[in-house]
């Protein structure tokens, strides 16, 4: 069935000559057209992790709290009291560039399914977005579409979007990044996994009908864009959040019963990957009757049915005899549920179409024995030149207040309210701290606990020094959690890179992983799930290496939660940590001087940990009124955010600097391991004790109060004026 196999047809499936040889060897014969399709998606970079697997195994994935590490639909971490959280981040980059609304929407839909397939009810989503230059003619269209798509899906399914980040840089002009994170909560005893076992157990298909949408989506995600990318639009799936909402409720209702053996989302590579991966994990075989699959359109071939990436579908393996009860639950929710196959013991993936066998492949060949490459990695020759930065040649601006205003109104630093006000941030009534703070905080109903969530990644740092960039991405995420009073329990990563076939990209990848590994080890945060997105480049130009870290932290007493904003007049302002003359890779250097040069700020992980612990203990002891991480834009921007970020009312501050470094560095250096806190004068001695005990540098730098933002002797301005610039900086450019 299907066309005869030619070398050109094999190549067009993204299968190399060597890989084709392996296929023939695994089968002991030439594959059929349908089988070639199955191999092409299962061996795609997206599904097989063939270029990244070798490096990913270096990441620490264990900890006493880890219930499920990488390799499942999502990672699961114990949070005590019989509860656990499942979370993961995933990319939907290429589809979102081609069709921003549907691409982003189905990205959210996919990650939500990954969470509830584990038995967890999704309770919070975040997203990390990267767009091209704000002035690029396509950027406005892409931002509007992506944001509307994320909102359109998330709002409709009733999961709040509580935080995220968004950056603009030319390197994403032709390849935007849309990374979606979701966290769900699950009883420890009711965690489900994607496993098939039990000879004769039925394989049940539930959810939307299968159409031709998304065929070869996984393959598309595994190759670089070219000029013809627009023609790929038909490979973008169309989302139906209403059906997903029904699927979510029906699955969770079903999971209260004891019918399910294993369950997996039909995501990338659809029916093929879900069934093969489940059988792979269970060490069994699977047999599918494709004629039984509910179809949306007529005339679909077995090849198309196996490879369709139609959304809102799940595959489950049930206990024999429970079929009727399962079908009844899905009928209640007006969803299709059909037995489409059964578990076998021959360890083969077999598919039938109208009684005729159309695929018969060893499961091993599709899963464990899929190719793994240790691709060549080379440090780019231009890296040295890139890291050179002679500060003497950078002219210090005369009017540093004007520079601060310029930065606060810049798209990367301005308020992101225009984006997040399009997301329902409140549904499920758990949102204690929503978007705009260092980390989002949700309460866990029925307990005194809270969860803090953040997504972070500075790709400019990674471009200039991928090792340091990897360290900083993890450290900053943990620091954000510390600022709200949360201790990290685990992280998930979305690794967005160029082509793995480019040795310089592979070097970046290896370096970033090493940096992440060192930071995870030092800060004791296990990696529990993740996603790799390669081939983010257009016509040979890769994006900056962009690891995005989604980190989750636990707050034992959510009442103690801390926010970044100054609260009361008279509170002292203190900086934990030290500012150095580190302008390399800074937002200031980029936005004001147009340079992406130098080395990113240095980070000492022992100091980092000490600063975080000091902040956490200060919050535990109720010493602080506010805590805010100093990062993009440096101290001046962080202080301004403390004054103007409060959604209720801006407040002034008076700062005295005694820095012995050049003025622009004192204000805008992005030295790591710094937190600005404010507190009542009478609590100062106790904070000093804590800082001394942790060996953390601590300086009293000013006082909260009034309506002006003053940094003596450099600048003073009305806080309302800064607030106006910051509030409209992004919105005015996107209107």
């Amino acid at each position, binding site marked *: 069935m299907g066309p005869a196999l030619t070398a050109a047809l094999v190549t067009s499936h993204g299968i190399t000559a060597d890989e084709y040889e392996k296929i023939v060897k695994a089968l002991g014969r030439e594959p059929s057209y349908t089988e070639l399709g199955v191999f092409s998606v299962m061996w795609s970079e997206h599904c097989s992790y063939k270029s990244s697997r070798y490096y990913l195994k270096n990441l620490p994935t264990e900890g006493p709290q880890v219930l499920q590490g990488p390799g499942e639909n999502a990672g699961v971490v114990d949070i005590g009291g019989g509860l656990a959280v499942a979370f993961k981040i995933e990319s939907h980059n290429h589809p979102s560039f081609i069709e921003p609304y549907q691409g982003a929407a189905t990205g959210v839909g996919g990650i939500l399914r990954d969470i509830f397939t584990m038995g967890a009810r999704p309770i919070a989503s975040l997203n990390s977005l990267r767009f091209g230059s704000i002035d690029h003619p396509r950027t406005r269209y892409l931002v509007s579409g992506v944001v509307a798509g994320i909102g359109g899906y998330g709002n409709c399914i009733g999961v709040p979007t509580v935080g995220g980040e968004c950056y603009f840089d030319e390197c994403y002009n032709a390849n935007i990044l849309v990374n979606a994170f979701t966290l769900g909560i699950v009883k420890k005893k009711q965690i489900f996994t994607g496993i098939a076992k039990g000879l004769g157990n039925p394989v049940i298909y539930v959810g939307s009908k299968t159409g031709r949408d998304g065929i070869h989506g996984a393959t598309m995600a595994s190759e670089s864009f070219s000029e013809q990318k627009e023609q790929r639009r038909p490979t973008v799936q169309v989302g139906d959040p209403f059906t997903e909402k029904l699927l979510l409720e029906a699955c969770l209702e079903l999971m209260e019963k004891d019918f399910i053996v294993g369950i997996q989302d039909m995501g990338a590579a659809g029916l093929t990957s879900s069934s093969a991966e489940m059988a792979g994990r269970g060490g069994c075989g699977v047999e599918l009757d494709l004629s039984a699959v509910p179809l949306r359109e007529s005339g679909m071939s077995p090849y198309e049915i196996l490879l369709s990436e139609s959304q809102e579908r799940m595959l489950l393996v049930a206990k024999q005899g429970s079929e009727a009860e399962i079908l009844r639950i899905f009928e209640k929710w007006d969803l299709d549920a059909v037995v489409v196959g059964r578990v076998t013991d021959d360890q083969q993936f077999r598919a039938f179409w109208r009684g005729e066998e159309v695929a018969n492949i060893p499961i091993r060949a599709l899963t464990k024995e899929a190719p793994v490459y240790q691709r060549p990695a080379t440090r780019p020759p231009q890296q040295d030149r890139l890291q050179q930065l002679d500060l003497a040649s950078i002219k210090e601006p005369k009017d540093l207040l004007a520079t601060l205003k310029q930065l606060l109104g810049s798209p990367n630093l301005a308020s992101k309210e225009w984006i997040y006000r399009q997301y*329902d941030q409140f549904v499920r009534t758990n949102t204690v701290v929503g978007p705009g703070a260092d980390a989002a905080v949700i309460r866990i109903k029925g307990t005194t606990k809270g969860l803090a969530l953040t997504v972070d990644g500075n790709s400019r740092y990674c471009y200039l020094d991928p090792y340091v960039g990897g360290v900083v991405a993890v450290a900053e995420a943990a620091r954000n959690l510390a600022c709200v009073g949360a201790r990290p329990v685990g992280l998930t990563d979305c690794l967005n890179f160029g082509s793995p076939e480019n040795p310089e990209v592979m070097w970046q990848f290896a370096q970033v992983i090493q940096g992440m590994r060192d930071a995870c080890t030092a800060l004791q945060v296990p990696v529990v799930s993740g996603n790799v997105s390669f081939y983010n480049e257009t016509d040979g130009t890769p994006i900056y290496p962009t690891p995005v870290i989604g980190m989750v932290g636990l707050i034992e007493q959510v009442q103690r939660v801390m926010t970044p904003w100054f609260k009361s007049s008279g509170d002292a302002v203190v900086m934990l940590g030290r500012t150095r003359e580190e302008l390399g890779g800074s937002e200031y250097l980029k936005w004001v001087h147009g340079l992406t040069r130098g080395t990113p700020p240095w980070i000492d992980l022992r100091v980092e940990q000490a600063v975080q612990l000091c902040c956490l203990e200060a919050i535990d002891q109720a010493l602080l009124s506010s805590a805010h991480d100093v990062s993009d834009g440096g101290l001046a921007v962080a202080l301004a955010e403390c004054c103007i970020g409060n959604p209720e009312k801006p407040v002034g501050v008076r700062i005295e600097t005694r820095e012995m470094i050049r003025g622009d560095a004192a204000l805008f250096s992005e030295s790591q391991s710094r937190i600005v806190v404010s507190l009542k004068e009478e609590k100062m001695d106790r904070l000093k004790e804590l800082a001394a005990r942790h060996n953390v540098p601590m300086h009293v730098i000013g006082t909260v109060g009034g309506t002006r933002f003053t940094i003596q002797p450099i600048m003073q301005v009305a806080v309302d004026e800064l607030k106006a610039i910051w509030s409209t900086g992004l919105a005015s450019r996107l209107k």
Partner: protein
Amino acid sequence: MHWGVITFPGSCDDHDVFDALKSELGQKVKLLWHKDELAGNFDCIVLPGGFSYGDYLRCGAMARFSPILRGVVKFAQNGGLVLGICNGFQILCETGLLPGALVRNADLQFICRPAYLRVEETDTAFTSGLKRGQILKMPVKHGEGCYYADAPTLERLHKNRQILVRYVDAKGKPTPSANPNGSVENIAGICNETRNVFGLMPHPEDACSELLGSTDGAKIFNSIATACADKATSHV
């Protein structure tokens, strides 16, 4: 008193209303399924927010045909209290229990942010525990929350004092910038002529806990509970 909260396919805030009433306010509350007939004794039925039946046609247009709605309409006609929040407000307009319509927000974008509401009338069960001119803070979150009514309808709303809450700024002024969606006259919620059906776009269930930033939403639910208790006593 007894509360019923309807779950339509696509309801998102049904559990939030349920939780707020049960856990935060200690009320007796039951979830009702859209395919069932309305059965049992209820003092107040809540139509929650969300996207009933996906709202792919027009918000609330499908839900009005669901089996349970027949009972709800009868319940309202017999004087029972009905509260529609967000999608629930849209459904009440579609059924004709409330006049006017909710159309796409003026700027065409979904909007989620805290809003200030001014209480305009207090002679309803929903607002009897509040003061005229009182300011309440609670979130709005909707794509189709722009209230529209033609001139004769607006005139009737005025004459019968059916406008119960308006969008205002923190100082209580109904300014254009305080209006999140372009609603005519900053209208955030209205009741029917017999004052037993109330629809509003903002979400009181999201404002029932100090930890979440406001307990002003609880004031509406408590008002209803008190009114029902008073009514029960007066019947004795």
